[in-house]
């Protein structure tokens, strides 16, 4: 018993351990919700720094190329911290990426239907316009579905502000769908439009909320009055009916004890009311007329009944609402959109009267001008679709861009946008970027550019795709945009690079490809992958750099006194890939012709090292003479070739003889070279790296060394004659 009691008590206590409380770790830059206020000066949403706050004394901020990594700092003695800045509307979540990818798929799939073009030449089908509308409508419906899925995917996060913004977007889109993207589809059914209307109104504000319903039904317990005896019940029923929530309203009536009313007449009429509500004809216009007739009949019959005054009045109001009475609909509406929905459902369900309904609805219940979606929906009803785009843009750029394109494809944007840009005519006509702007094109362009500053490389193909498909820009404009943008692509794998270069190839951007190769070259250089770096520089046409690094390899080999430990370089100069276990195809793909050419001095030096190793002195001397007589050999390398190899190996040993031509070649070379700083520095380095145990020590200064070389050469010349 005691155990049971304990268990029961446990059930009443909160299981703290199992609750998913927000921890400090959860509140990171990506996941934390932002508390937003409105800046009184700019009238713009204001957020705070996500963690610690800077003091704000001489506050400075610099945009990073990846916007989410931007930093702010105070130029103040008290504070030398860097503060990351969280930017409003910058959503880098995987859900957003998925959403944008889906929207782009839709946009891409529209094909020719992206434009509102009616064919005027060729085979013109009468149905082409209908087909176009049908495709665009379908795309819009898919867009709304994707937005719903996106909201659904983030609803369990703590990004409340973001969810709120997207819900507002959805309300606007649902209204837009209802008014403009349903009825002109050839296969459109009347019910679709009405269902969409009901969905729009009810999803937008979620009224009536559970609390109100509960209050109506719970009050009877306190007051001991019947549910239907309270005015709240009738208001609630009216509200549910105005919002097209028929099953909820009948349920409400059934639970209201009206069916247990002592007056049989009331019971009968309530039963009729339930039947009438349940039989609202969504799909047929003719049935609607009949239905409305039966409502009017019901009113007439009810009017003749002798029932309690209050009951008579309340039920009559409900009947009048159903009959489409403008006054009653407006009277029982709490919000203008409830009136609008009620009029559309019960007066005449047609969009032709939409504008009139809108005016009527806002007479008694004004629009909440602080509410984005309400004003936007009213603008939609009044056929001012262009006006909603800035609002949508402020809520979510991606959604607004695709909505704008679809609205343009549908031909429903009426704007003076072209007039805004009319002044361009006054300007020079030779601008490469001159294009006819459209709101959709503008927003798509903004989106493409914005996505490329996100820390998400999967969005780059969308960016490039949007620019490529832009209806407003010509190919030259697109090429200039891509040329500026592509080098910023944050590649990390070979596949990324392949993609990047394929875009350059497709858009014929050889200079951009060269820039990318240069960047890759530098990158690989920092990873100590000199061969790949040289390969990239070759592809970039940076032959000076290829030459430079080839000489660096050459220099390193001299200073090391042997072949380098790099098997790739050695297999290139050796031509023997088998012994280095490097696939020949792979090597050929890396090594460019220019590399083979610039690496040829090292190839000779490499062979020289091999001859020395195998004690093939004559061949070694020949190779050394070849190197020293090479006309493009930099002077400093002549000096260190002499100092490191020729002088100790062949001049200071009596066993080695040089023939006359070899001696003259070296003497000519000595004649040619000018001793410069580089020669002196490298000579010093050779001296420093020379082993103390080396058999031949080098003179202290380069001048003495050269003199000594000449002297030794003279001796070798004599030796040759002798």
């Amino acid at each position, binding site marked *: 018993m005691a155990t049971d009691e304990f268990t029961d008590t446990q059930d009443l206590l909160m299981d703290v351990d199992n609750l998913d409380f927000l921890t400090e770790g959860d509140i*990171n*830059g990506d996941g934390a919700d932002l508390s937003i206020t409105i*800046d009184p000066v700019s*009238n*713009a*949403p204001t*957020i*705070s*720094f996500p*963690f610690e*706050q800077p*003091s*704000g004394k*001489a*506050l*400075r*901020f*610099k*945009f*990073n*190329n990846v*916007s*989410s*990594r931007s*930093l702010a*700092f105070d*130029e103040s*003695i008290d504070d*030398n*911290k*860097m503060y*990351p*800045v969280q930017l*409003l509307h910058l959503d880098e979540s995987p859900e957003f990426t998925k959403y944008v990818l889906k929207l782009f798929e839709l946009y891409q799939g529209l094909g020719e239907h992206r434009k509102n073009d009616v064919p005027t030449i060729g085979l013109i089908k009468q149905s082409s316009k209908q087909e176009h509308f049908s495709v665009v409508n379908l795309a819009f419906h898919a867009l709304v579905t994707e937005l719903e899925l996106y909201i659904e995917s983030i609803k369990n996060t703590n990004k409340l502000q973001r969810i709120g913004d997207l819900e507002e977007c959805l309300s606007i889109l649902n209204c837009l769908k209802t008014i403009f993207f349903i009825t002109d589809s050839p296969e459109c059914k009347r019910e679709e439009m009405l269902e969409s209307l009901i969905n729009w109104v009810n999803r937008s504000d979620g009224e009536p909320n559970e609390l109100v319903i509960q209050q109506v039904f719970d009050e009877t317990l306190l007051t001991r009055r019947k549910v239907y005896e309270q005015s709240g019940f009738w208001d609630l029923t009216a509200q549910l009916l105005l919002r097209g929530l028929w099953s909820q309203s009948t349920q409400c009536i059934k639970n209201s004890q009206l069916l247990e009313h002592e007056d049989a007449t009331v019971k009968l009429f309530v039963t009729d009311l339930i039947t009438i509500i349940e039989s609202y004809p969504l799909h047929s216009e003719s049935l609607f007329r009949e239905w409305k007739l039966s409502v009017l009949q019901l009113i007439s019959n009810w009017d003749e009944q002798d029932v309690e005054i209050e009951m008579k009045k309340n039920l009559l109001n409900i009947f009048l609402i159903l009959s489409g009475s403008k006054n009653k609909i407006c009277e029982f509406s709490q919000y203008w959109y409830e009136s609008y929905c009620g009029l559309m459902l019960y007066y005449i369900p047609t969009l032709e009267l939409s504008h009139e309904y809108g005016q009527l609805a806002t007479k008694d219940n004004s629009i909440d001008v602080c509410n984005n979606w309400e004003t936007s929906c009213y603008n939609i009803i009044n056929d001012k679709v262009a006006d909603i785009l*800035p609002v949508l843009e402020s809520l979510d750029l991606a959604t607004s861009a695709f909505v704008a394109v679809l609205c343009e494809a549908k031909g429903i944007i009426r704007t003076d*946008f072209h007039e*805004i840009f009319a002044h361009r005519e006054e*300007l*020079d006509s030779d601008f490469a*970027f001159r294009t006819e*702007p459209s709101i959709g094109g503008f927003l798509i362009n*903004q989106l493409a*550019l*914005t996505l490329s*500053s996100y820390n998400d490389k999967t969005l780059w193909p969308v960016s490039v795709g949007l620019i490529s498909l832009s209806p407003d*820009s010509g190919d030259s*404009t697109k090429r*200039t945009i891509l040329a*500026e*943008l592509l080098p*910023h692509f*944050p590649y990390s794998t070979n596949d990324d690079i392949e993609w990047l270069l394929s875009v350059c190839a497709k858009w014929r951007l050889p*200079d951009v490809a060269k820039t990318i190769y*240069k*960047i890759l070259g*530098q990158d690989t*250089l*920092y990873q100590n992958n000199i061969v790949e770096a040289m390969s990239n520089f070759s592809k970039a046409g940076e032959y*000076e750099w290829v*030459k430079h690094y080839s000489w660096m390899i050459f220099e390193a080999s001299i200073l090391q006194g042997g072949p380098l430990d790099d098997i790739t370089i050695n297999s290139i100069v050796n031509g023997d890939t088998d012994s280095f276990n490097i696939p020949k195809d792979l090597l050929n793909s890396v090594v460019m012709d220019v590399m083979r050419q610039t690496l040829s001095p090292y190839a000779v030096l490499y062979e020289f090292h091999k001859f020395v190793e195998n004690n093939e002195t004559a061949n070694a001397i020949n190779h050394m003479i070849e190197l020293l007589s090479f006309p493009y050999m930099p002077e400093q390398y002549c000096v260190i070739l002499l100092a490191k190899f020729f002088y100790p190996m062949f001049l200071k040993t009596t066993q080695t003889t040089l023939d006359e031509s070899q001696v003259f070649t070296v003497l000519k070379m000595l004649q040619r070279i000018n001793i410069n700083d580089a020669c002196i520095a490298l000579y010093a380095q050779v001296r420093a790296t020379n082993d103390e145990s080396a058999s031949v020590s080098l003179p202290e200064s380069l001048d003495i060394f050269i003199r000594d070389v000449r002297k030794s050469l003279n001796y070798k010349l004599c030796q040759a004659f002798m």
Partner: protein
Amino acid sequence: MKPFLTGHADLVHDISYDFYGRRVATCSSDQHVKVFKLDKETNEWELSESWKAHDSSILSLDWAAPEFGRIIASVSYDKTIKLWEEDPDASELSGKRWQKLCTLNDATGPLFSVKFAPSHLGLRLAALGNDGKLRLYDALESSDLRSWTLTSEVSILDTPPASHLQSDFGLSWCPSRFSTERLVVSAMDQATIFQRNKHGKLVPAGKLKGHTGLIRSIAWAPSIGRWYHLIATGCKDGKLRIYKVTETHSNVSDNNNTNDTNANSSSIAVEHGTRAEGSSMEPDSSVPNLHIELIGEHSDHQGEVWSVSWNLTGTILSSSGDDGKIRLWKSSYSNEFRCMSVVQATR
């Protein structure tokens, strides 16, 4: 991403990100430059290297384009420009990872600003300081980064400002690879656009008018997909200004007439104190004329505007000011800039 301590022992004057935004370099009055890199795993900035770079306060620094390697230029009150290159073989935090490539010491006064030119112009940098001279240097051989040549010198001010007075200088290159070589220079309360003429000389191409105080910050917007340019300035007079710059083919006198009739516009305006290379005071007809129009003037910060900066694609402008707020501005279809959001510091 959390705030992090730079570890500087004095005022931080400038920061600069590398091309891919994975590194940030900071400079300070403590004569040190520090480089932080972003840890991919933790998404936090970590100190990579710190070194004493100058003998006085370092006021500005910039990264070269990645095509040229990892190079940083820094300028200081010690009148020198120094160029640094990362040595990947040296370990991090060893104090040796960044090797000095060279020191350029042509300036006769403290240097305030240094910026590398966009990469399509080659490895070139511009520096400006208290001696009122804009100097451009080129690494003529890309493989030899130790050798830099002074290729242009332009007098921005007739006389350098008195040392006891507050002064500020800034510069920003036109980043478009499809435009003539241009840069905008701010000196005290004047801002002038310079462009290279067909003789290869830098000549003034127009002034950004309207400033009534020291220009604290100047930024030329990336003009990706735009047929005009945008330049933003932040000024001590409390205003953020946005200028629209368009190339025109009308002749100079026409432009000057426009200038007279429109107080907010200017074209080629060679004014007192601005000298082109070769001391030519005449506008150069070999370069496109620029029509400069003030399209936005905002005093939302209600105090000094300390910095202005554009995002990667030039679609968002930021400004920060004495009110301790960062304001983000976005252009509408009609090219009207509106504050779209504010980031607030506690004050």
